[in-house]
C-alpha cells in the first residue's frame, strides 16, 4: 500500500512540477520505487511530494513507513482531523504537529443530537484554544462539531492567532453573540464565519457592527441559526465592502427588502440562505426582489425559507435552472404542490434536502427532473404523526428516486412505511450508495404488505451496494439483518441501530464481520455482555461504541474496562443521585447508557457527576 501511495505521489508531483531535475522525473516514471530508494532524496523533495497527499488517512499511513518519513510528515502536516476530542490531548497534538494550521474537532457522540446525552457531558473547546495559544501555533482554521464553546474561548481564539481565517461551528453550544463580537472585532483576516445549527444565546446586540471597516476579506458568512434581531445597516455595509463574498446565509430577522438590497450589492453570491417572510410582499417589493435575483447569475445554492410565504419561492424561478444545491427542509409553510412546481425546473440539482410534504408524487417529479441528483434528504414534517397526513412519503417515492437518479449516492429518508420488495429494487437500482439512512417513523414496524421483518430488504442494500460506508436501519429487524451486514458490508464505517435484533448474535455478526467499522451506535436493542465482551480488541480499531437501553450490565462494563485499559468506558446515568454510590452498586444492574472510545490519554478529568468512567 505504501508503494502505491508513493507512486501516486510521484505521478502527481511529476504532472504538476516542471522544476524537478530530469533524473528524478525519470525515476518517478518508473513506478518500482521502494521506500529506501526514496530516502536518497532530500527531505524537501519528500515533503514536496507529501504536499500532494491531503487525505489525513493517507498521511497517517505515510507516517508509519519509517522514522524519517514520520518526522518529515509531522512537520509538513497542516491539517489535522480529530474525530473524538478525548482520544488525544491538545498538548500531545501540538507536540506531534507543531506546524498545524487547520484543526477539526468533534466532541459529543452523535446521539447527543437526539437528546440522549446530558447537556453537561463534555466536549469543551477551551483546553484546546488554551494550549494552541500558549504554544503559539499558527492556527488559521477551526472546525468544530458538537463541542461546548464559551465566549471566553472565542475571545481567546480571536486574540491569539493573527492569521486566523475560518471558523465553522456545527451543532455547538455554550456561547453567545458576545463571543461572535470578539471574532468579528479581532480577526483581521477573517474569511469565513459559518454557524450551522448551533444553540447560541442571542443578546440581540451589535455583534455585526464589530466587524471593522477595514474588514473586506469575508468569503462566507452564515448566521442563519441566530434567533434575534441584527443591525441591518451594519450587515448591508459589511456585504457591500466584501467583494469576495460568495456565501451569505441570513437569519429570520432580515426582512425581504433588506434581502433585496443585500443581493443587489452582492450579485456575485454563489450560496444564499434566505430569511423569513410570512406575509405576502407588496407587488413592488416582489418585483425588486426578482430583479435582484436575476442579477445573481452565479447563484448555485439556496437554503433557509423557514416561515416563508410560498410566493417568495417563486421569485427564484429565474435562477432555479442553475441551482446545484437546494435546502428547503425548514420550509414548513410551503405546501407540496409549490415545492413540486419549483423543483421540477431545477434540472442541475445535485443536492436536495426537503420535507416529506413533497409526497411520493413530488419525488416522482424529482426523479424525472433531477438527473444529476447525488444526495437526497427527506425529513418528516410531522414526526409524531399528529395530523392525519396522507401526503407523507412511502416506499413508492424511494423507489422512484432510485430508478430516476443514476448518480444518487447518499440518502436520508424518513417515511411511514417500507417493504422488502422496495428495498431490494432500490438496492439493485443504486449499487453506488455510500450512505443509506432509512428511518421508518414507527419503531419495529414490519413490511407493511407482507408483515415480515425488513431483514431481506436491508440485506439487499448491503449486498448490492458494495461501497456502502454509512448505514442506519429501522423497522422490524431480527438478528438476520446483522448476519447480512456482517457478511456483505465490507466498507461499512458507521452503523446506527435502533429497536432491532433478538440476541447477542446480532451484535456479534457486526463486530466480527465489518472490518472497517469505526462507529457503532445502538439504542433499545437486546444486546448484552456476551456481545460486548466477545472481542475487546475490536474496539481498538474503532473510534467509539454507543449503547443505550440495551442489556449490558455494570458488571460487564467493569470487566471490559479492566481488560481494555486503552479504552475510556463511560457510564452515563441521569438519575438524581448522579455518580453511582459505591455500596449500592449491583453488578447485575443494567446500564442505561454506555459510551466507550479508544484514547491515548486515559481517563478525562472533566467528566460531570452523571458520568462514571470505569
Amino acid at each position: 500500500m505504501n508503494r502505491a501511495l508513493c507512486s501516486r505521489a510521484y505521478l502527481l508531483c511529476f504532472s504538476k512540477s516542471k522544476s524537478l531535475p530530469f533524473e528524478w522525473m525519470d525515476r518517478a516514471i518508473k513506478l518500482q520505487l521502494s521506500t529506501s530508494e526514496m530516502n536518497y532524496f532530500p527531505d524537501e523533495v519528500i515533503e514536496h511530494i507529501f504536499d500532494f497527499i491531503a487525505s489525513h488517512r493517507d498521511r497517517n499511513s505515510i507516517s508509519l513507513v519509517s522514522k524519517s518519513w514520520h518526522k518529515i510528515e509531522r512537520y509538513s502536516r497542516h491539517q489535522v482531523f480529530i474525530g473524538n476530542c478525548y482520544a488525544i490531548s491538545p498538548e500531545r497534538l501540538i507536540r506531534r504537529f507543531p506546524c498545524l494550521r487547520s484543526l477539526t474537532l468533534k466532541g459529543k457522540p452523535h446521539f447527543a443530537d437526539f437528546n440522549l446525552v446530558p447537556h453537561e457531558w463534555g466536549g469543551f473547546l477551551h483546553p484546546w484554544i488554551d494550549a494552541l495559544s500558549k504554544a503559539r501555533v499558527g492556527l488559521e482554521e477551526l472546525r468544530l462539531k458538537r463541542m461546548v464553546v464559551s465566549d471566553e474561548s472565542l475571545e481567546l481564539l480571536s486574540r491569539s492567532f493573527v492569521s486566523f481565517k475560518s471558523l465553522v461551528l456545527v451543532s455547538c453550544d455554550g456561547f453567545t453573540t458576545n463571543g461572535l463580537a470578539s471574532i468579528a472585532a479581532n480577526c483581521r483576516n477573517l474569511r469565513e464565519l459559518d454557524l450551522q445549527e448551533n444553540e447560541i444565546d442571542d443578546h440581540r446586540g451589535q455583534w455585526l457592527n464589530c466587524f471593522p471597516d477595514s474588514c473586506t476579506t469575508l468569503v462566507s458568512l452564515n448566521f442563519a441559526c441566530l434567533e434575534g434581531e441584527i443591525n441591518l445597516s451594519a450587515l448591508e455595509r459589511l456585504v457591500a465592502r466584501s467583494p469576495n463574498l460568495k456565501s451569505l446565509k441570513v437569519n429570520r430577522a432580515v426582512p425581504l427588502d433588506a434581502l433585496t438590497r443585500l443581493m443587489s450589492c452582492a450579485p456575485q453570491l454563489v450560496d444564499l440562505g434566505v430569511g423569513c417572510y410570512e406575509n405576502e410582499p407588496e407587488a413592488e417589493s416582489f418585483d425588486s426582489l426578482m430583479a435582484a435575483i436575476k442579477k445573481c447569475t452565479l447563484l448555485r445554492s439556496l437554503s433557509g425559507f423557514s416561515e416563508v410565504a410560498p410566493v417568495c419561492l417563486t421569485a427564484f424561478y429565474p435562477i432555479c435552472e442553475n441551482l446545484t444545491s437546494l435546502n428547503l427542509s425548514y420550509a414548513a409553510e410551503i405546501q407540496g404542490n409549490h415545492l413540486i412546481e419549483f423543483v421540477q425546473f431545477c434540472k442541475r440539482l445535485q443536492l436536495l434536502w426537503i420535507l416529506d410534504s413533497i409526497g411520493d408524487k413530488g419525488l416522482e417529479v424529482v426523479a424525472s427532473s433531477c438527473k444529476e441528483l447525488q444526495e437526497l434528504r427527506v425529513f418528516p414534517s410531522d414526526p409524531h404523526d399528529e395530523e392525519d397526513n396522507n401526503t407523507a412519503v412511502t416506499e413508492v417515492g424511494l423507489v422512484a428516486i432510485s430508478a430516476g437518479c443514476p448518480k444518487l449516492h447518499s440518502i436520508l429518508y424518513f417515511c411511514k412505511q417500507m417493504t422488502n420488495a422496495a428495498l431490494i429494487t432500490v438496492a439493485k437500482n443504486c449499487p453506488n450508495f455510500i450512505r443509506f439512512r432509512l428511518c421508518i417513523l414507527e419503531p419495529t414496524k414490519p413490511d407493511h404488505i407482507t408483515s415480515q421483518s425488513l431483514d431481506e430488504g436491508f440485506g439487499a442494500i448491503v449486498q448490492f451496494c458494495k461501497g456502502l460506508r454509512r448505514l442506519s436501519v429501522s423497522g422490524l429487524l431480527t438478528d438476520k439483518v446483522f448476519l447480512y451486514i456482517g457478511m456483505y458490508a465490507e466498507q461499512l464505517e458507521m452503523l446506527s441501530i435502533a429497536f432491532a435484533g433478538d440476541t447477542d448474535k446480532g451484535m456479534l455478526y457486526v463486530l466480527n464481520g465489518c472490518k472497517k467499522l469505526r462507529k457503532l451506535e445502538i439504542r433499545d436493542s437486546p444486546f448484552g455482555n456476551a456481545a460486548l465482551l466477545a472481542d475487546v480488541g475490536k474496539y481498538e480499531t474503532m473510534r467509539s461504541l454507543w449503547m443505550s437501553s440495551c442489556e449490558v450490565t455494570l458488571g460487564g462494563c467493569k470487566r471490559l474496562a479492566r481488560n481494555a485499559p486503552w479504552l475510556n468506558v463511560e457510564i452515563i446515568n441521569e438519575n438524581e443521585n448522579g455518580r453511582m454510590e459505591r455500596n449500592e452498586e449491583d453488578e447485575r444492574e443494567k446500564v442505561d447508557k454506555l459510551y466507550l472510545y479508544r484514547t491515548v490519554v486515559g481517563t478525562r478529568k472533566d467528566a460531570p457527576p452523571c458520568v462514571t468512567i470505569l
Partner: protein
Amino acid sequence: MEKGGVEHEITELRLGLPGRDVTEKMMKKRGFTEMIMTSSGSNSDESGVVSGGDVEKINESPAAKSEVVGWPPVCSYRRKNNCKEAWTTKVGLGYVKVSMDGVPYLRKIDLGSSQDYDDLAFALDKLFGVRGIGVALKDGDNCEYVTIYEDKDGDWMLAGDVPWGMFIESCKRLRIMKRSDATGFGLQPRGVDE
C-alpha cells in the same frame, strides 16, 4: 412488566408483532402511556379491542404515539425550528395557524392583535382577501363559510360562541371551511343551547 393477569397482556396495545420482547422494552419507556393502557384495559370487557371514548381519545393524544426519547432521530435544532411542536410555543404569543379550504398554504394570525370577534373577522378577510369570512362569525347561518377552531383539548368548535377572552385562551388553530363541508365534520355541540 407488571404482574397483572393474562387480562393485562391481552389488552395491552403493541406496536410490533405480538409476542416480541422488544416492544415490552419500548413500553417501559412510555410510562405514562403504559398506565393509561393497562388501566383502560382492566376496565374493558373485550379482549384486545380498543373500544370506548376514552381509549380512542388516548390514541389521538400525543402520549399514545411513540413518544420515545430521541425518536424519531431528528436533531433537536431541527425539531425546534420546524416541527409542529414549534407552533405550540407560538400560541402563547397569540399567533395561530389559519387554514382555508381551497387555499394551498397556511397563514398565521396574531389573535393578540384583535380585540373581539369583529376585529378577527376583519383580519381574516384581509388575510385571505376574501370577503364573507367575517360575516360567518357574526351571522352564523347566512354565508358560504364557517369558521371553526381547534381548542386546547383538540376538539373542533364553531368560532363565535364563547366569550372572546375564553376563545383566545383556548384557540390553538383556525380553519375556514365551506359550510357544505362542515356538516358531519364532527363539531362539538354548542353546549347547553343544543
